[in-house]
């Protein structure tokens, strides 16, 4: 590999700063990546705690620990914390850490903006948590019992905690858009000489598409919640039927954001898989060009099928038919991606280290979640499943394997590169199995509960649903507690362990593995030239 020099002040800034200033004022992509990941981990435990409380309440019929409003408040917070606080920041953390190293850049294109994107997040998280806490204080108003979808008219009637939530969503949106702008500029302008777009690592491609998706849909959500704020306090009637508005308009605005958001969560993990599977199959990725095409197709079609979340609102036959066909069409490019992953593994010299275990788990379980998605896409069937526990099972099978397990695979895959130490492989495998078994015990029974008619977002249930709920709750405790092991493995790898080589995995390819483990404070001070 030949090299070419970039302008760089050799005399300055070669050591990592120390103390709190290193983190607060950081413009270094690796430090900001670490901050994102630590933030996401913290929020994952908070969101996980709310999920465990929900499952404890549902352990048996009747009302045990919570009251109905608090239960729904927990449901709302669990979703918002996990989506905006855990998964998106974790994916942004991987992007910050890996994108400059993968494309041969010294840092992100806009380092100060990078700092701002991250430090908005703790403020947003504080607002988000306050929206949960405020109703417990005198005069704090009612709890947010709307679910993460925030549908009016209920969201117009909720107390002041909803205002905290609206501002939290604004801040989270600003952070996401700024981070997306930075990622797009980095990927388009900072690639090493010779690295054309079609030579770019797949993780970078997935993030390029994700960042464009975010810029397109997050402002629409911001617009929607701003209109909600106006309806609540400034006498407008965007969503108030009595004033000439319509609450269904909010649903359209919300899901125009909400459905592409699913792909925002999924695509970075697909990017991780596109590196993990070839590495541990010791083969190049099968069908790079078709992967890029499939991803673009998923993003494009995913933008125009939002109303499949709203079949029951009474749309015209033409509209529901369009949304149904469009939704089912998405399974074609997604199926192509899964096919490419399987084709990459086919006749490869496969080994099953922890990242690969997660990757294979994703291919199996995400496909399962996708299949129940096809069931939900069919209008007459969806009329039966709508708002039942079947939907809860479906989207957890999509988002846990599709997004979260992909992030776990990425963390285990790149942890040696980040820390300079190999993690404890035995513990990694124990974590995988407890996590996956716990996940399946939790969510598989919920398919049956939904098909039998158990509604979601309701604190109590009929005694006929008891057995599956008991199983699901036991699974949730195993699943939730297993994440403590993840924390232990990460801390152990940071503190020490077997030294990692530059190329930590035998089959790994890509520029990031040319750098030392851990990499120098400034990644590529001299840009590599790609042939």
């Amino acid at each position, binding site marked *: 590999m030949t090299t070419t020099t970039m302008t760089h002040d050799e005399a300055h800034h070669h050591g990592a700063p120390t103390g709190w200033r290193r983190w607060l004022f950081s413009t270094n992509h690796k430090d900001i990546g670490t901050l994102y990941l630590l933030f996401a981990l913290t929020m994952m435990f908070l969101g996980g705690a709310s999920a465990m409380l929900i499952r404890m309440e549902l352990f048996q019929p009747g009302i045990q620990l919570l009251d109905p409003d608090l239960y729904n408040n927990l449901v709302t917070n669990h979703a918002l914390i996990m989506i905006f606080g855990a998964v998106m920041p974790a994916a942004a953390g991987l992007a910050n850490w890996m994108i400059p190293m993968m494309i041969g850049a010294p840092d992100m294109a806009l380092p100060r*903006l990078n700092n701002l994107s991250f430090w908005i997040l703790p403020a947003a998280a504080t607002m988000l948590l306050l929206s949960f806490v405020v109703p417990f204080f005198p005069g704090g108003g009612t709890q947010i019992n709307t679910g993460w979808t925030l549908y009016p008219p209920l969201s117009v009637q909720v107390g002041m905690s909803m205002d905290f939530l609206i501002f939290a969503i604004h801040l989270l949106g600003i952070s996401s858009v700024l981070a997306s702008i930075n990622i797009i500029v980095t990927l388009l302008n900072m690639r090493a000489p010779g690295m054309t777009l079609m030579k770019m690592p797949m993780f970078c491609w997935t993030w390029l598409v994700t960042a464009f998706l975010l810029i397109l849909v997050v402002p629409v959500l911001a*617009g929607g919640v701003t209109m909600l704020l106006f309806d609540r306090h400034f006498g407008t009637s965007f969503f108030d039927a009595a004033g000439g508005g319509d609450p269904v308009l909010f649903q359209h605005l919300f899901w125009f954001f909400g459905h592409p958001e699913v792909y925002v969560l999924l695509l970075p993990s697909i990017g991780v898989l596109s590196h993990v599977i070839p590495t541990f199959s010791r083969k190049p990725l099968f069908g790079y060009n078709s992967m890029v095409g499939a991803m673009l197709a998923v993003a494009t079609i995913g933008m125009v099928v939002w109303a499949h979340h709203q079949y029951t609102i009474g749309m015209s036959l033409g509209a529901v038919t369009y949304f149904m066909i469009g939704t089912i069409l998405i399974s074609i490019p997604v199926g192509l991606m899964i096919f490419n992953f399987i084709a990459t593994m086919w006749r490869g010299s496969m080994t099953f280290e922890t990242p690969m275990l997660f990757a294979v788990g994703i291919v199996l379980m995400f496909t399962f979640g996708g299949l129940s998605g096809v069931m939900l896409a069919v209008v007459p069937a969806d009329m039966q499943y709508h708002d039942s526990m079947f939907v809860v099972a479906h989207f957890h099978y999509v988002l846990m394997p599709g997004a979260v397990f992909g992030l776990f695979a990425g963390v285990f895959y790149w942890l040696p590169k980040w820390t300079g130490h190999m993690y404890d492989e035995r513990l990694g495998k124990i974590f995988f199995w407890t996590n996956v078994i716990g996940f399946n015990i939790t969510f598989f029974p919920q398919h049956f509960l939904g098909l039998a008619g158990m509604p979601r977002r309701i604190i109590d249930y009929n005694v006929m649903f008891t057995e599956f709920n008991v199983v699901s709750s036991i699974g949730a405790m195993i699943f939730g507690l297993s994440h403590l092991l993840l924390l232990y493995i990460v801390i152990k790898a940071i503190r020490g362990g077997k030294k990692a080589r530059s190329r930590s995995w035998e089959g790994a390819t890509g520029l990031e593995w040319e750098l030392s483990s851990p990499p120098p404070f400034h990644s590529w001070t001299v840009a590599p030239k790609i042939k």
Partner: protein
Amino acid sequence: MAIPENQSPELRKKNLRLMWLLFGFALMVLLTSFPFWIGMFRIVGDQALG
């Protein structure tokens, strides 16, 4: 803390230009979402009723 001088002035200018372009695009999506969605909603609603 100062930012490492890892970008040539031309590259920095190019980065900032693209940043503002994308920022303007995001702002346009935000501002046009209000009339766009209300108008589109009315059209779809009228069709469903008519």
